[in-house]
């Protein structure tokens, strides 16, 4: 089943996909075009992976990491499907990153690889924009480059884990204005999902709704105001976002 969080007719609802429409939790069947899409989950922890695909690490001239390189995002970083992301005034290079996102389903502490999938409620798509102008070599990738307001589109769906039999073999595609820019497959992750869950929960307890953005393959390019960026993962969802001008120069 595919779940969404939407604003419809003046209030926030949980909804599920039903024959191309949305069944809202109060029973109404409404069109997808009639809602505002919100991030499908409200996490308290947003973990993201850097350099988790070997081709992407090469692209950025880094040796692949020997243990997961993870950073955190604030809750204000998320924005829903069909949302807008601001390109900061004066920025020279801002790029998208299509990422399979794991949603934790139950309290997870000291979870082993073998049992990791039992702690996943489902999957969604993230676009982990980076503004490279602000990268510094202190806690890199730093929050000013990666934790910016509304610069991490998420959604449209939370897809139940049962509906994704092999999350380690999904194709990822990013298009900009309809042109394919980035292609990859989740089988090329350096640290797979069970390894990541075992690693993180060895020292931090994760809660239902917490997110792990699992990294991105190669194929990065600069995006400009007006560009429509679509990050899509087979079976999980097609997440669209528009780059807009900064409203303060």
């Amino acid at each position, binding site marked *: 089943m595919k779940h969404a969080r939407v*604003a419809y007719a003046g*209030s*926030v609802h949980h909804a599920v996909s039903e024959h191309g429409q949305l069944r809202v939790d109060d029973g109404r069947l409404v069109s997808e075009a009639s809602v*505002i*899409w*919100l*991030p499908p989950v409200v996490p*308290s*922890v947003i*973990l993201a992976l850097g350099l988790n695909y070997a081709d992407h690490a090469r692209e950025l001239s880094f040796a692949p990491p020997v243990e997961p*390189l*993870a*950073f*955190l995002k*604030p*809750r*204000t*970083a*998320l*924005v*829903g*499907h*069909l*949302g*807008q992301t601001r390109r*900061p005034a004066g920025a020279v290079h801002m790029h998208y990153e299509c990422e399979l996102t794991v949603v934790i389903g139950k309290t997870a*502490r000291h979870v082993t690889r073998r049992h990791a999938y039992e702690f996943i409620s489902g999957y969604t798509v993230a676009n982990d924009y980076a503004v490279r102008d*602000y990268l*510094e*070599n*202190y*806690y*890199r*990738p*730093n*929050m*000013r480059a990666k*934790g*910016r*307001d*509304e610069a991490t*589109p998420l959604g449209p769906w939370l897809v139940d884990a049962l509906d994704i039999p092999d999350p380690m073999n999904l194709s990822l595609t990013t298009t900009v204005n309809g042109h394919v820019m980035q292609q990859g497959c989740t089988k090329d992750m350096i640290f797979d999902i069970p390894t990541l869950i075992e690693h993180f929960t060895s*020292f*931090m*307890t*994760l*809660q239902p709704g917490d997110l792990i953005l699992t990294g991105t393959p190669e194929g990065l390019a600069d995006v400009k105001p007006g560009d429509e960026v679509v990050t899509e993962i087979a079976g999980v969802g097609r997440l669209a976002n528009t780059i807009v001008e900064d409203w*303060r120069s």
Partner: protein
Amino acid sequence: MPEVLPSGQSSPSLFALSDWQLRFSQREKSPSHPAQKTMISRRSLLYFTRGTETLQTTPILPAQRAPQACPHFAALAAPPDICDALVMPDAPRSVIGVALNFRETVHRLAASFNAPPYQHPPQAPVLYLKTPNTWINSGHPIHCPPGADRLRMAGTLGVIIASTACRVPAAHAHAFIAAYAVVNDISLPHDSFYRPALRERCSDGFCALSEPSPSAQTHFEIGVVINNVLRSVSNTSSLVRSISHLIQDISEFMTLLAGDIILVGEPETSPLAAPGDLVRVEIPGVGAIENKVVAA
């Protein structure tokens, strides 16, 4: 030393509540009071723009502290959102730490900033998050993870944000402060600031927080006492970026919400503690917390 919490106190209390907070909490209990209606209606005002939610706040209390010079920011600086900002520590919030923000530390490391891997001195504040799994109250044990024999105890000041703060100039930042907290920002000792220090900073129970306390002070003295021996004294007058400049520089790219907490920095003299040690952090005029380090 000033008034402090009794040793080991961890339950929420009226400690350090100011007059206006007390008045408000009494109002909340009275169903007929108009303030409660205002509060309920305020909480229902959700706005949606471009797929994000904004809780639109309307004033309950007079905006006495709003600055006069800039009408735009004076209007934006809503009074402290008491219900959301001051429920410690479990309300949804971001707790944001700032590394390399005491002058003594920056002086010690200055020579290394121009060498690999850093290449240049930091331009923006060096930030990290303390995730909810790290939050504990005073009195709760600090678990020393397996494989570690010492933990760094950075006594610091937490600045609690009053209302939505987006791109706030430093000159108006104080209108966005609801209260302060005493914080023990715990970490596994580490020397490198190159990669995000997730395990070092975000292991379970690595952030002890006091009850919130309003304060009119402009500078705060921070003491760390281990087993009744004073081990560190620092003062926020030594910050590289002042509290106002932290609010400005962080809210430039990351909107701060009511209840978010900025930890102003790790004092250079932050001591280490081992299992068995009783660690007390005190900030005169704000409060104190006390936690015992135990083996995991």
